[in-house]
């Protein structure tokens, strides 16, 4: 496995082996395999409809895969609710459309899951929440409601909300696609910072700059298949697969 910048990667934390998924008769994932190691930053790219989002949504069982094996932190995903809960506790997710809870303040958004799932006391949860809100740069917004914040601020709250659960892996499902161009930077800055700190991240994105500069590995998907993976410089400068070449020529 590649480990650029002299980064020391840990053991495998996500293992997907031959994952298949159908929506009705539509074969959305056609035997995807992917291994992510601790502290690794993996960026999944590919044209829309290629199954990128579906794939990472299978990792925390927002979508149910029908064939193959997904193992997260040693727990194999099955219909067993206890296993699903175990996996979800260790996997944080950031969505394209933020999905903050509009009826709760920013602080309550961030502290709800730690208090109810991890059973932390309110002061403990709030202390940790403020730590992460500071980290994403918006501690002063803690008592506001999501609707009062800009898109960029909302997405940063969503990142803080996922981080406060202290997950082992963070999944980002197109985190900047719903943002106005001028605020994309503030969210990417937070993600770059997390990557440099050694957070394990799987990111579905169209931000090629981020993929090129921050990721340890780029995964290219098309038509529900993983067609190519490798270090960013290799994928972007010497793409081997013809479809990756076409994709890159369209967007770069």
């Amino acid at each position, binding site marked *: 496995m590649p480990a650029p910048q002299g980064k020391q990667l840990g053991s495998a934390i996500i293992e997907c082996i031959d994952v298949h998924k159908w929506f009705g008769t539509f074969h959305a994932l056609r035997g995807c395999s992917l291994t992510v190691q601790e502290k690794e930053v993996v960026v999944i790219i590919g044209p829309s409809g290629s199954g990128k989002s579906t794939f990472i949504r299978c990792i925390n069982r927002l979508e149910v895969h029908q064939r193959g094996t997904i193992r997260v932190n040693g727990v194999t995903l099955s219909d067993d609710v206890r296993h699903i809960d175990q996996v979800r*506790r260790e996997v944080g997710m950031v969505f394209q459309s933020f999905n903050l809870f509009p009826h709760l303040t920013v602080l309550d958004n961030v502290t*709800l899951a730690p208090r109810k799932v991890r059973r932390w006391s309110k002061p403990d949860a709030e202390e940790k929440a403020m730590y992460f809100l500071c980290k994403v740069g918006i501690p002063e917004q803690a008592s506001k409601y999501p609707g009062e914040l800009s898109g960029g601020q909302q997405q940063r709250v969503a990142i803080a909300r996922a981080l406060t659960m202290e997950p082992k892996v963070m999944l980002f499902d197109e985190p900047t696609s719903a943002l106005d161009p001028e605020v994309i930077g503030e969210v990417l800055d937070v993600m770059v910072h997390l990557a440099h700190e050694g957070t394990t991240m799987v990111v579905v994105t169209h931000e090629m700059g981020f993929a090129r500069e921050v990721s340890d590995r780029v995964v290219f998907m098309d038509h529900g298949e993983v067609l190519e993976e490798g270090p960013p410089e290799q994928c972007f400068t010497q793409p081997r697969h013809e479809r990756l070449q076409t994709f890159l020529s369209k967007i770069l």
Partner: protein
Amino acid sequence: MPTESYAPVLPPPQVSMSLLGWLRLHLFSTWYNTLLTLGLVGGLVLVLPPLWHWIFAVAHWQAVTINLRLFLVGLYPSDQVWRPGVLLILLAWLCGGSTAPNHGMMRHVSAPLGAGFVLLTCLLTGSARGIVGGAALALLVGYGLRWRWPHTSRLWHIGWLLSAPVVLIVLGGIEGAGLSPVATTQWGGLMLTLLLAAVGIVASFPLGLVLALGRQSTLPVIRWCAIAYIELVRGVPLVSVLMMFALLLPLFLPASWGRPNTLIRLLVGMTLFTAAYIAENVRGGLQAIPRGQYEAATALGLTWVQAMRYIILPQALRAVIPALVGQCISLFKDTALATIIGSLELLGIAKTVIEQAQWKSITGGVVFEVFSFTAVVYVVFTYSMSRVSRRLEHTLGVGTR
């Protein structure tokens, strides 16, 4: 010099208007508007003076004032009327305690409710200033307690839970305990109306919630049962449900069960009926919540129950407050249907009063007086409910901008 320069900030145009200007704009702007205005004024001139004359010179309001106690508590024994009085004081106290000075949404319900209870004691006890003062005092004492200890909402909730059996026991009485038994057939008037409405609303809400969640369930059997129940009940008129529970049900029950109390049968019928409608209202709210909210909640590791409790239901119920209050108003008015099975709630009492011998000599009887009084009572209550609903929506709107 190319410095930054912004366009000047101008004040908004002044709109000042004389009375004449306002009239011209709103009432006489076009020929058909003028015609409409004149027609309305003409109509009012025709209707109002005779109405005024009837209200203040002709109408026999003594039919209402003499029977005020009948309207309030029905055939409840006159020497026992202190019991509803004491209960009103208790409820006023609970209302006061549930009115948190600076926070919480329940204060928008409990404050007007408490005021209503004090007003009712005024009517009920007439000249007995003691009890009225007691109710007002109880309201203030409750409020004071809550002001002193603001984080006691759970205790007050328990108080409300306990109040239901207390009300029923105090009204019904216990053999040999100083409270002589009063049969439920003697309960009546506004008291019975409020009791039916309150129990119906409180009991049908949780049932409706369960049905709504059942209808959304991924387990087919639960979903089919919920759908069947909701569609069946919604397909039947309330009158027939009440008839069935009041008249037919006893015939089908095993003889050893005896005849369950009519009041209870009424309440069960109303609750089961209203629950189906509440379920549909709640379902509307549930469907309005974007999928992303479920996903975010479950991705954070919340269980289904936790996601419902903290994320989905607070938003879903908030979205359907107008519909739920509409259902409450509807149920409040539907209690009048209890009349047809011989219950003497507000409307039943109205009909009894009209039949009293002493008004027979008056041409046309006292039908208009009694029914307009009853109508006013219903309107006062339903209008208060919709005001409360507006204030709730207003308070809850804060987070949804």
